[in-house]
C-alpha cells in the first residue's frame, strides 16, 4: 500500500520566548536557554531547556542533567511551604506554617544566641554556590562556625593547588584544550567541570591527541582513554612520585622554568636544631633570596636581570643554606620511588610506569613548540616567544578524598611544574581571578563575642601555627575543629565532623544547627545510620542532644525529616543567584566571566529563595551589614544585595555592567545591572589580552589587567612553591619550636605528614586495621547523568540510574563464585551491608565500587515506597566512619586528611562474601512521612495553550 507522504510542518514554532539563565543541575554552572510556552492559563511555562551557545562554560552543549532540568522544576518532591516539626525527629511529621511564623521562630532561636554565645550557632551551607554571601551573613552574626561542603568534597585538591601554585583544577584552571597533545586524567568526579572536560576530550581527540586515564574503574572518561591505568586506590601519589623520580633522574625537567618561576632556587636553612631549620633565607623585608648565577651574589628573587641558581649554596651566620632544588634532588631520587619499589603497591607494572613517564617526557620535550607572542616578565625581561609544552593533567575527588590526598595532590602539581607545563601553551592554564598565591588569601578568623561580628572571614590559608583557630586555652575555636593541630590547613572547614562533634559536645556543645542544601542525614554523611541516631538522640532530661535544627532545601530530602524547622527554598529557575568572581567563579582561561540566575518562572508554592530568607533574617536579627544605623533594612532581598553590595569600593558580587553599564570589574553600583545581564544572556565576559594569556603569575600584562578588573589592588607576581614553608612551620612547632605547641599525641603525625616536599604515606585507616581482614578497596563514583541525591526525584534521570549494584572485578567474582543476580555481604571495620552485585572486568582487581547516592530512604524525594532506590538501592556510607577505629586512648581521631581535614571517603576497605538473594538491601531504615506525598504514576506533558 503506497500512500502519499503526509503533510508535515517542518517549521513549527519552537517557543513563545527564550529566557537565558544558569543551570544548577550540578556544580558546573552552564548557560541555558529556557524555552517558554504559553500554558492553558496564559501563563508562561518551561517547555524545553538547551545549552546557550554564547556561554563561556558550555558553548551550547548541555549534559543529561541540564536537559532534564524541566523535570526538576516539575518534580513532585518540591517542598510547598515552611514546615514545623510535629512528630519526633526523623519521622517526617510536620505542619505547614506561614513564613512570618517560620521567621519569627528562627529569630527567637537565633537572637539569644547572638546576644550571649554566637558560637552556639553552627551554620553550614552544603553545596552552596553563594558562599561569599552566606559567609558574610555568618560573619556578621558572629559565629566562628561556618563553612560549606568543601571539607567533604575536594579541599585537598584546592588547598594543595593554592599552596603550591596559586590554584588547582576546575574553578581555578583548565587544560589548554586547543594545543594539548597528551591529557592525563586521574580519578574524577564528573560534575566538577562536567561539560568543559567532555568538550575538551572531544577537541583533543579531533586534534589527534591522546588521553591517559589513571583510575581503578574503566568507565566514563576512562572508557575513551587511549591508555587505561587501573591503579589501586590511594596509591596515586606513589605513582606520581615514581614518575617524578624517573623524569628527574633523566634530566627531563624544565630547568629554565624552575629557576625563573619557582622557589627551586630559594635557599633552605640546614642548621640542625635551629628554629629556622627548613625555612627559606629572606632579606629584611621578608623577600626570599636566591644566588645570582652570573655574580654569585645573594639577591631578592624578583630583582631585574638576575639568573637564579638552582645549584647555589650559601653559608651565613654559621648556617648552611642549599637550594630547594638540591633538596628535591635528594628527596625524589631516593630509591623509595623506583618503579620496582612502588609497582606492587600501585598495582601497575614497573614497565608500565616507565612507559608512562617516557610518554609524558616525549610529549613535553620532543613536541614542545613556540607561540609568536612576546611578553614581559615581572623581572622586566621581555620574551619574544611563548614556549609551549603540550602535556596537561586533571584530577579531582578521586585522588583528593584520601587521608594522603593533600600530599598526593601536591605531588601532581609539582610534577606539572617540574615539566614546565603550568601556565604555558599546551599545558594547564589558570582561569581568572586565579592564579592567586596564599598571600592573596585571608587567614582564618575565629574570635567570637556576643553581639559582635566575627573578627574577619572564617576560612583562609594558614601561614603557620599563629593562624590556627585555637582559643586562648589551646582548645579548638570551631565546632568542626578546622584549623587545629588535627588538620591545620583545613581551608574549607570539616562539614562532615559537625554533627558528630556537636553530638559529642567535643570541643563544646552547640544550640542550633542551621544547614542549607546538604543531605547530612543520608548520602552526605559518613556513617549514615549513626548520624541519624545522633540527630535524634536525647539527653537525660529527654531533650535532643543537638537542641535545634533548622534546614533549608527545595526538595523533600532525607535531611528534611530531621529538622525542627524547614525553610523551603525555590528551584533554580525560580530565583536570583550570582555566580560571582568573589566566590566560586566560572571563568575560562582566556576570559573572566560571571553570571546570574533570575526567576524565569515564579514559584507556584509558598517558598522563597534561601538567600533572600537570610537577608530577611539578617534584618530581623539586626545584623551589621544587613541593617543601617537606624535598624532599617539595607537590602530588600538577595537580588538587591547582588546589585548594591560592595565588598570594597567599586567591587561587588557582579563584575559586569557596573557604573553606567560600561565598566567591568571596578565601578559604581548600577541599579540596572541585572537587566543588563539578562539582556546579555545571563552572563558577563571580559577577555584576557593575548599578551596576558599565559605565564599569568609572572606576566606584567596579566598582572596589570587583573588589577584593572579588581582581582587584587596591586600586581603581585610570585614564585610557585615546590617547597611549602607553612608545612615546615607546622613541623617546627611539632619539633618543639615556638610558643604555640601541638598536643604531644599529634607531634609525630605532624612531623611525618607535613613534609614541605610531596611525600606518600599509606591511608591512616590502613594503619589501624588488619589489611588482610579487609583486603578490598571500595569506592563510589558519581554518574554523569546524576548529581548527588537530586537525580532520583527526576522522572527522566532515574530511568537512567535507578539501580546501583556493587560492581565486582573478575578476580573476586570468580573466587567467590558470584553469578548474575547474586547478593553480597560487604563488611568494613565499622559495619556491614547486604547488596546486589554485578560483574565488571574493567576494574582494578582489588576494588569494588557503586554509584553514589542512588539509595534513598523510603518516603523521601516523593518516590513510592517500592521504588528501587528505596528497596535495592544502598549507600556505602554505612561502612565508612567519620572517626578512625578507637585506639584505646580515649581520643576521637577523625577519618580525615591530617593536613586539611578532607573526609577520607575513598580510604574504605572491605571484605566481601556471597549472601543469599534478598528483596531489600541492608541495613534497612524506617520510612519517613513525606510532607509532599508521592509523585504521579503517569507523566505526559506538553505545554499547550
Amino acid at each position: 500500500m503506497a500512500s502519499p507522504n503526509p503533510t508535515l510542518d517542518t517549521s513549527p514554532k519552537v517557543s513563545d520566548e527564550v529566557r537565558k539563565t544558569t543551570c544548577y543541575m550540578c556544580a558546573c554552572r552552564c548557560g541555558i536557554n529556557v524555552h517558554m510556552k504559553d500554558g492553558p492559563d496564559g501563563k508562561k511555562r518551561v517547555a524545553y531547556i538547551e545549552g546557550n551557545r554564547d556561554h563561556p562554560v558550555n558553548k551550547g552543549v548541555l549534559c543529561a542533567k541540564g536537559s532534564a532540568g524541566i523535570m526538576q522544576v516539575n518534580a513532585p518532591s518540591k517542598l510547598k511551604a515552611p514546615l514545623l516539626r510535629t512528630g519526633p525527629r526523623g519521622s517526617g511529621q510536620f505542619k505547614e506554617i506561614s513564613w512570618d511564623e517560620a521567621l519569627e521562630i528562627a529569630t527567637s532561636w537565633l537572637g539569644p544566641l547572638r546576644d550571649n554565645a554566637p558560637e552556639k550557632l553552627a551554620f553550614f551551607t552544603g553545596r552552596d554556590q553563594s558562599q561569599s554571601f552566606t559567609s558574610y551573613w555568618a560573619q556578621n552574626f558572629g559565629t566562628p562556625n561556618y563553612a560549606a561542603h568543601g571539607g567533604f568534597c575536594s579541599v585537598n585538591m584546592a588547598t594543595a593547588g593554592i599552596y603550591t601554585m596559586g590554584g588547582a583544577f576546575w574553578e581555578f584552571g583548565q587544560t589548554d584544550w586547543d594545543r594539548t597533545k597528551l591529557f592525563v586524567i586521574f580519578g574524577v568526579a564528573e560534575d566538577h567541570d562536567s561539560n568543559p572536560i567532555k568538550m575538551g576530550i572531544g577537541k583533543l581527540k579531533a586534534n589527534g591527541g591522546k588521553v591517559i586515564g589513571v583510575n581503578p574503574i574503566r568507565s566514563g572518561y576512562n572508557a575513551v582513554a587511549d591508555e587505561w591505568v587501573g591503579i589501586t586506590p590511594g596509591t596515586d601519589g606513589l605513582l606520581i612520585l615514581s614518575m617524578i623520580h624517573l623524569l628527574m633522574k633523566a634530566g627531563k625537567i624544565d630547568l629554565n622554568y624552575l629557576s625563573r618561576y619557582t622557589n627551586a632556587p630559594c635557599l633552605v636553612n640546614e642548621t640542625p636544631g635551629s628554629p629556622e631549620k627548613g625555612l627559606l633565607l629572606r632579606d629584611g623585608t621578608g623577600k626570599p633570596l636566591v644566588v645570582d648565577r652570573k655574580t654569585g651574589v645573594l639577591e631578592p628573587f624578583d630583582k631585574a636581570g638576575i639568573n637564579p641558581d638552582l645549584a647555589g649554596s650559601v653559608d651565613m651566620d654559621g648556617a648552611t643554606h642549599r637550594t630547594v632544588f638540591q633538596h628535591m634532588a635528594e628527596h625524589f631520587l631516593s630509591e623509595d620511588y623506583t618503579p620496582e619499589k612502588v609497582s606492587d603497591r600501585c598495582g601497575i607494572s614497573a614497565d608500565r610506569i616507565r612507559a608512562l613517564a617516557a610518554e609524558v617526557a616525549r610529549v613535553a620535550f620532543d613536541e614542545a613548540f613556540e607561540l609568536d607572542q612576546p611578553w614581559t616578565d615581572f623581572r622586566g625581561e621581555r620574551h619574544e616567544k611563548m614556549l609551549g609544552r603540550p602535556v596537561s593533567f586533571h584530577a579531582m575527588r578521586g585522588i583528593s578524598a584520601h587521608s594522603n590526598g593533600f600530599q598526593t595532590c601536591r605531588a601532581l602539581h609539582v610534577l606539572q611544574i617540574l615539566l614546565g607545563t603550568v601556565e604555558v601553551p599546551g599545558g594547564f592554564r589558570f582561569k581568572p581571578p586565579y592564579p592567586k598565591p596564599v598571600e592573596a588569601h585571608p587567614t582564618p578568623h575565629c574570635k567570637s563575642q556576643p553581639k559582635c561580628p566575627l573578627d574577619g572571614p572564617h576560612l583562609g590559608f594558614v601561614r603557620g601555627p599563629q593562624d590556627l583557630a585555637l582559643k586562648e586555652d589551646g582548645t579548638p575555636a570551631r565546632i568542626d575543629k578546622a584549623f587545629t593541630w588535627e588538620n591545620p590547613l583545613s581551608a574549607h572547614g570539616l562539614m562532615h565532623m559537625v554533627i558528630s562533634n556537636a553530638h559529642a559536645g567535643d570541643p563544646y556543645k552547640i544550640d542550633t544547627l542551621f544547614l542549607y542544601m546538604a543531605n547530612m542525614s543520608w548520602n552526605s554523611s559518613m556513617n549514615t545510620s549513626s548520624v541519624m541516631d545522633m540527630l535524634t538522640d536525647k539527653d537525660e532530661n529527654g531533650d535532643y542532644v543537638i537542641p535545634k535544627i533548622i534546614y533549608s532545601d527545595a526538595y523533600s530530602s532525607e535531611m528534611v525529616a530531621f529538622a525542627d524547622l524547614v525553610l523551603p527554598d525555590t528551584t533554580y529557575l525560580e530565583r536570583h543567584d550570582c555566580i560571582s568572581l568573589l566566590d566560586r567563579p566560572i571563568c575560562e582561561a582566556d576570559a573572566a566571566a560571571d553570571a546570574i540566575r533570575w526567576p524565569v518562572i515564579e514559584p507556584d508554592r509558598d517558598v522563597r529563595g534561601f538567600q533572600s530568607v537570610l537577608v530577611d533574617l539578617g534584618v530581623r536579627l539586626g545584623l551589621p551589614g544587613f541593617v543601617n544605623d537606624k535598624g532599617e533594612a539595607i537590602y530588600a532581598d538577595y537580588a538587591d544585595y547582588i546589585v548594591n553590595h560592595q565588598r570594597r569600593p567599586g567591587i561587588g558580587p557582579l563584575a559586569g555592567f557596573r557604573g553606567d553599564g560600561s565598566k567591568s570589574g571596578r565601578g559604581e553600583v548600577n541599579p540596572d545591572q541585572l537587566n543588563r545581564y539578562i539582556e546579555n544572556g545571563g552572563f558577563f565576559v571580559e577577555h584576557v589580552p593575548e599578551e596576558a594569556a599565559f605565564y599569568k603569575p609572572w606576566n606584567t600584562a596579566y598582572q596589570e589587567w587583573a588589577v584593572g578588573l579588581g582581582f587584587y589592588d596591586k600586581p603581585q607576581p610570585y614564585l610557585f612553591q615546590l617547597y611549602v614553608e607553612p608545612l615546615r612551620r607546622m613541623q617546627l612547632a611539632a619539633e618543639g619550636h615556638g610558643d604555640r605547641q601541638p598536643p604531644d599525641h599529634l607531634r609525630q603525625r605532624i612531623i611525618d605528614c607535613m613534609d614541605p616536599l610531596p611525600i606518600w604515606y599509606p591511608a591512616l585507616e590502613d594503619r589501624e586495621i588488619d589489611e588482610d581482614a579487609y583486603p578490598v578497596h571500595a569506592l563510589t563514583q558519581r554518574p554523569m547523568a546524576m548529581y548527588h541525591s537530586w537525580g532520583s526525584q527526576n522522572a527522566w534521570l532515574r530511568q537512567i540510574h535507578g539501580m546501583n549494584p556493587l560492581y565486582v572485578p573478575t578476580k573476586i567474582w570468580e573466587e567467590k563464585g558470584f553469578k548474575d543476580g547474586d547478593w553480597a555481604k560487604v563488611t568494613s571495620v565499622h559495619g556491614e551491608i547486604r547488596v546486589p552485585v554485578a560483574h565488571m572486568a574493567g576494574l582494578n582487581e582489588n576494588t569494588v565500587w557503586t554509584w553514589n547516592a542512588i539509595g534513598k530512604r523510603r518516603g523521601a524525594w516523593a518516590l513510592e515506597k517500592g521504588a528501587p532506590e528505596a528497596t535495592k538501592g544502598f549507600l556505602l556510607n554505612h561502612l565508612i566512619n567519620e572517626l578512625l577505629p578507637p585506639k584505646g586512648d580515649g581520643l576521637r581521631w577523625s577519618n580525615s586528611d591530617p593536613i586539611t581535614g578532607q573526609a577520607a571517603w575513598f580510604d574504605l576497605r572491605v571484605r566481601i562474601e556471597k549472601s543469599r538473594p534478598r528483596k531489600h538491601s541492608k541495613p534497612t531504615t524506617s520510612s519517613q512521612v513525606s510532607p509532599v506525598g508521592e509523585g504521579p504514576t503517569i507523566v505526559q506533558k506538553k505545554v499547550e495553550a
Partner: protein
Amino acid sequence: MTELPATTQRKLGLVIDLDTCVGCHACVVACKGWNTENYGAPLSDVDAYGADPVGSFLNRVHSYEIAPTGGGCSQTVHFPKSCLHCDTAPCVTVCPTGASYKRSEDGIVLVDESACIGCGLCAWACPYGTRELDQVAGVMKKCTLCVDRIYNENLEEVDRVPACVRTCPAGARHFGDLGDPDSDVSKLVAERGGFDLMPEQGTAPTNKYLPPRPKDRLTAQPVDISSLTPVAEEPKGFLGWLDKALEAL
C-alpha cells in the same frame, strides 16, 4: 505492506563516534526533551516515581565491556542507539496502515501517528530495537532525526541539527547527508572506517558508527624508554649534570 521509495534525494543520518562517546546520556535526555514538546504525542513516563518506571525514549545509550581478542585488559564502549533510517527499512514494509514511511526527499523514516494503530509490527521487524510503543498515547515512537528542527526556519541555521547532535558535549555525534560522498560526514566515515550496524540484516542503515581507536598500546609493544636514561647514577653525578645543564641554558 507499505512501500519504500526506490531512491531518496538525500540520505540524512547520524555518524556516531564510539571513540569519543563518554556515555553521559546527554543525547538521550535532550532528545526526550525536544520530542516531548514537538513531533506527535509527548513521550510519556509510566510509574514515573514508582517501582518500575517505563518511559518512551527515542535514543538510548548502552554500555558494553569488551575483552580484546588478542588478550589485554577489558575495554568499555558506550553505544548510543536510535533509528538508523535504513534504506531497506523492514519497519516500513511491515506496516499494515502506511503509518511507517520513508521520505523520498531525505530518507528519514517517520511514523504518521494519525495512521498508526499501535500494532507494534514495526518494532518486531526492526532488528535494532529502536522503536518504542508509547504506553500512554498508544502510538509507535521513533527517532525523527528532528525533522522539525533540521528544516525549521524559526531556528537559527546553526541550530538546524538534531537535538542530540546540538547537545553532545564530547562532539561524538555528527549529522549530514551520507548520500553525498563530499559531505563532512561521508568524509569522516571514509577517514575513520565508519561501519554499518549489523550489515548482515540487509537493512542498509544510513547511520554509521566510527570504531574506537586501538587502545592500551603504550606497553603492547616494547616501549622506547631511552628518553629516561639517567643523566648520572650517583647523586653527585646528578649535581654535575645540573651544573653543566645550567651553564648551557
